């Protein structure tokens, strides 16, 4: 039984089970949001489905007590590992006053939480890369050993801020990890029409930093790469670019209809590599999980999501007067 891949990575059985729990929780929260949206209860959903392994694998490789995140809108799995709760997500989905990200001001998926060093994000893509570089610069100036991790889609990696951010981090040798979650599409635009050269990781060389390609359907593979990058950064050896390949299993958002630009068979094919399915199989094979444990987990999570939903649905909206507050320090 020894020498399973997770053992080799220094992850205990408990830890990999915990990884799976977070992946499943993210998936279940996400699925619930779609139901709520289709029932007309929440106006908008944007999904993590298909990218849970990347998000959870990466978050596990970081120090949750001191590292910083500048995530993007799909990173539900990541913010859960860093400390946000199901309730937090539902409060955000229902745009209620208690939403810790924004008090209901931003769409769901726009994470930001001072408790967990998750820097507030916006909708314009790729801006957060530079914020992560700034956090890393501060770490260097203050001689702290925290690391900043930032994520983005493969479409977004073509924005000018990507280039400026990687170059700045490279020149100043900063403790930052740039992780692309390549899910093959930017809304309707496939990666071939988006990204000259075909690979985000290949661009790292031009910035004098390692460019690492990982299987984003496998949380252990992601864990390993992010761990190495974080160690390197903490040693003062600078940034890394990681590209994790995956597939967006659902439409871009609740406003999208993906049947207009991709075939159902393609999606079906991708579902076979669903990171949840694969990681479950791994855990079963490794004897870390069995059907019983899994169904208990499912039940527990279902209840957690139910309670969160109920709580959030009943929670009060922000007062209209809130529209006018917090433009400047008060």
């Amino acid at each position, binding site marked *: 039984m020894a020498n399973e891949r997770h053992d080799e990575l220094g992850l205990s059985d408990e830890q990999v089970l915990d990884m799976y729990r977070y992946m499943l929780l993210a998936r279940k929260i996400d699925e619930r949001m779609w139901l709520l949206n289709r029932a007309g209860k929440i106006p908008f959903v944007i999904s993590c489905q298909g990218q849970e392994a990347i998000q959870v694998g990466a978050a596990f490789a970081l120090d949750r007590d001191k590292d910083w995140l500048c995530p993007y809108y799909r990173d539900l799995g990541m913010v859960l590992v860093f400390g946000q709760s199901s309730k937090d997500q539902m409060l955000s989905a229902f745009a*209620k006053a208690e939403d810790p990200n*924004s008090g209901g001001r931003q769409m769901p998926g726009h994470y930001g939480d001072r408790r967990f060093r998750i820097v507030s994000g916006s909708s314009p893509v790729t801006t957060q890369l530079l914020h992560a570089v700034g956090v890393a610069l501060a770490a260097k100036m203050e001689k702290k050993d925290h690391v900043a991790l930032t994520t983005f889609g493969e479409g977004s990696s073509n924005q000018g801020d990507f280039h400026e951010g990687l170059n700045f981090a490279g020149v100043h040798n900063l403790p930052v990890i740039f992780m692309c979650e390549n899910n093959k599409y930017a809304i*309707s635009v496939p990666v071939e029409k988006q*990204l000259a050269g075909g690979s985000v990781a290949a661009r790292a060389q031009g910035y004098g930093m390692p460019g690492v390609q990982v299987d984003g359907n496998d949380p252990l593979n992601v864990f390993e790469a992010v761990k190495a990058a974080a160690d390197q950064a903490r040693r003062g050896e600078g940034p890394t670019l990681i590209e994790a390949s995956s597939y967006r299993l659902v439409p871009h958002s609740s406003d999208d209809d993906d049947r207009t630009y991709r075939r159902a068979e393609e999606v079906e094919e991708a579902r076979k590599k669903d990171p949840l399915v694969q990681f479950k199989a791994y855990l079963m094979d490794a004897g870390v999980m069995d059907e019983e444990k899994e169904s208990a987990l499912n039940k527990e999570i279902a209840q957690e999501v139910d309670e969160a939903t109920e709580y959030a649905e009943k929670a009060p*909206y922000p007062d209209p007067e809130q*529209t006018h507050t917090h433009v400047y320090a008060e």
Partner: protein
Amino acid sequence: MPVISYIEAVTQALREEMQRDERVFVLGEDVGVRGGVFRATAGLIEEFGPERVLDTPLTESAIAGVSIGASVYGMRPVAEMQFADFIMPAVNQIVSEAAKMRYRSNNSWHCPLVIRAPYGGGVHGALYHSQSVEKIFTGVPGLKIVTPSTPHDVKGLLISAIRDEDPVLFFEHKRCYRLIKGEVPEEEYTVPIGKAEVKREGTDVTVISYGLTLHFALKAAEELEKEGISVHVLDLRTLIPLDKEAVLEAVAKTGKVLIIHEDNLTGGFGGEVSAIISEQAFFELDAPVRRLAGPDVPAMPYSPPLEKEFMLNPEKVTNAIRELAEF
């Protein structure tokens, strides 16, 4: 005349201009196979092929900059910014390049391009899918800025924009896309850039507006008619160049002016209109020129009560007009 929606007017204008002139092409994010996230370019790739309906990488500065290069060469690019909020990465190309190409080259070069962008709120779009961004550009000489409110004006003005010899920012209020329908001639027509239009005649209070809030003003005018208040409504349609004559005429009609826009109050285009009225029609005024606009907060929040608080609506407009009438 057939009745079509505001967004259908966009699509019709694009299609007809692409049929008329081979140099016209559209580019932007998801404008091809997907037909645009709002479906404004639906059907175009089928009719004109992927060379003239270009799905670009997710890069607004490139969308603007490549359009400049192509238009300098002699093409007629019509670029789409997926949401007006995302025009910001392209500001350098628009302000430093497009707006100044003709002037800096002493009229040797020019760039006849159109940038379309859905703007405005009331669609649960939160901070970054609801902004009015016209004020960022109204002070940039060299640009023309068009903000139509009806399908008729959308179609006629978009055709004019495509045929214009200078860069035009064409802002489409996304809440109007499916909400606003109207008659549009079957035969070819244009609406000139730089001409406002009186959308309703009245004698007590003049409302000057554009975009979605223009419709609120029309609704309010109907309401107020019942109360015996007669409202004159001027639709600016084009912000730059501004139709000053039409503004001054509309002021003279009533002597009381309310300027309305969804964009934030401070720094919004209403300030400019108000200043012009003060300078040029001071002695026509029977009351201070008033403005009704979005509050001075960074952008519209997501949560319904907050969005409602931010947005104007017919009721808020009615109250403001009534108050001015009673002044």
